[in-house]
């Protein structure tokens, strides 16, 4: 029995020594850079790699999530920053649009002034138009305080608008050439014949006026340009009005009439100029 026990111990020691030797041999054999991986290694590697992959995947997922949670605060802050930036940009855009519109108004004013270099003009904006269906009048934002007086002539960049009928301190009323009660002494630029233009309630919506008292000797042609003749004293001569659209010959030649389309589009009229006086050179 005792012998059997001694033998068993010796055998155990022997196998232990053999195992250690084998390990050393393995270390010696596998200690190289360019060696092939053995099948055993592969099997072991695969066995261990499956749970390892799962572990790593889980780890990465948790780590990334943590990163995500960490990033939420940063993103929120960034979002806040971007929102503020966006608001600032929007405000700038609105300012830009205001400046753009002011610029276009100022350009219009400059163009208007430059269109009539021979006159001293005051530029004004239309603040309201007549509510009556029978009258074509406008209220402008310049009055006595700005030097505007009744009977002054009002023009737009394209041509004649009308005249000032009454003035308050800050506003003035303009009677347009489309008004059925307003007659203007005009002439054709081609033949220089004098005629009378008059507003007509049936034509005013289409920016048209009627020519009357057409001399029997005169033959108007479609497209003939009409301008103020200067007769009558109210309107200076040479201000463009419009061009002949239709010319109707009646049985009685005295009743011949022509329809003139005005150069000014009264439906879109926003800015006008009031002729204060004729320009008399250098004012120094």
């Amino acid at each position: 029995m005792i012998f059997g026990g001694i033998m068993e111990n010796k055998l155990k020691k022997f196998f232990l020594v053999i195992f250690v030797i084998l390990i050393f041999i393995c270390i010696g054999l596998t200690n190289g850079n360019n060696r092939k991986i053995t099948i055993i290694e592969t099997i072991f590697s695969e066995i261990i790699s499956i749970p390892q992959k799962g572990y790593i995947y889980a780890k990465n997922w948790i780590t990334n999530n943590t990163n995500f949670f960490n990033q939420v605060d940063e993103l929120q802050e960034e979002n806040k920053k971007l929102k503020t930036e966006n608001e600032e940009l929007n405000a700038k855009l609105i300012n830009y649009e205001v400046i753009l519109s002011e610029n276009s108004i100022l350009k219009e004013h400059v163009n208007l002034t430059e269109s009539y270099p021979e006159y001293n003009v005051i530029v004004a904006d239309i603040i309201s138009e007549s509510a009556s269906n029978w009258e074509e009048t406008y209220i402008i934002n310049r009055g006595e305080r700005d030097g505007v007086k009744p009977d002054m002539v009002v023009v737009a960049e394209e041509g004649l608008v009308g005249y000032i009928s009454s003035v308050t301190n800050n506003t003035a009323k303009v009677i347009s050439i489309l008004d059925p009660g307003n007659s203007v002494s005009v002439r054709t630029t081609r033949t220089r014949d004098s005629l009378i233009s008059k507003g007509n309630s049936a034509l005013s919506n289409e920016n048209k006026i009627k020519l009357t008292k057409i001399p029997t000797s005169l033959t108007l042609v479609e497209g003939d340009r009409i301008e103020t003749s200067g007769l009558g004293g109210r309107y200076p001569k040479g201000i463009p009005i419009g061009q002949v659209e239709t010319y109707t010959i009646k049985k009685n030649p005295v009743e011949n009439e022509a329809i003139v389309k005005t150069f000014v589009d009264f439906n879109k009229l926003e800015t006008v100029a009031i002729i204060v006086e004729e320009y008399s050179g250098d004012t120094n």
Partner: protein
Amino acid sequence: MRNFWVGLIVFVVIILCTWLQLNIFNAIPLFGVKANVGIVLVVALGILTGKTVGVTVGIIYGIFFDILNGKSFGMYTLLFFVVGYFCGKINRGFSKENKSSIIMITAITTIIFETICYLMLCIIYRYDFVFLDMVWKIILETIYNVIISSILFKAFVFLSEIINKGKRSYYLL
């Protein structure tokens, strides 16, 4: 004191109607024809509240209309005054809730008002009388005014109730 507030409310309503006329109804014409809120206002208040308010509103609105639109001062004041007077006179014969009668009177008033207005302008300013254009514009304006009158009817009834309450308290005092 109550009368003062009623007067102030009426004045604000007149200003509001003038503003509506100049900025809203002038901007949205019906086939080139503008509505006349003044006629709608004066007719409704004249019928619903009586001669005094009708005439007062007519004169004040007419003055505003003359200043802002007319070539000469006084024509519209006179016309609105007459509208206020006659609508106020027929006040007693009307039920306050009768919408159709007020709309009908608005239509009739518009036709008479605009015809007289056009004829007066033809006489004073030597307009070329264009009958068809006159009829066409008056028909369109009448339709437009009737639509506005039916829309604003409830508001005018509410306003007239405030005015009538103010008037009763004045008579009681």
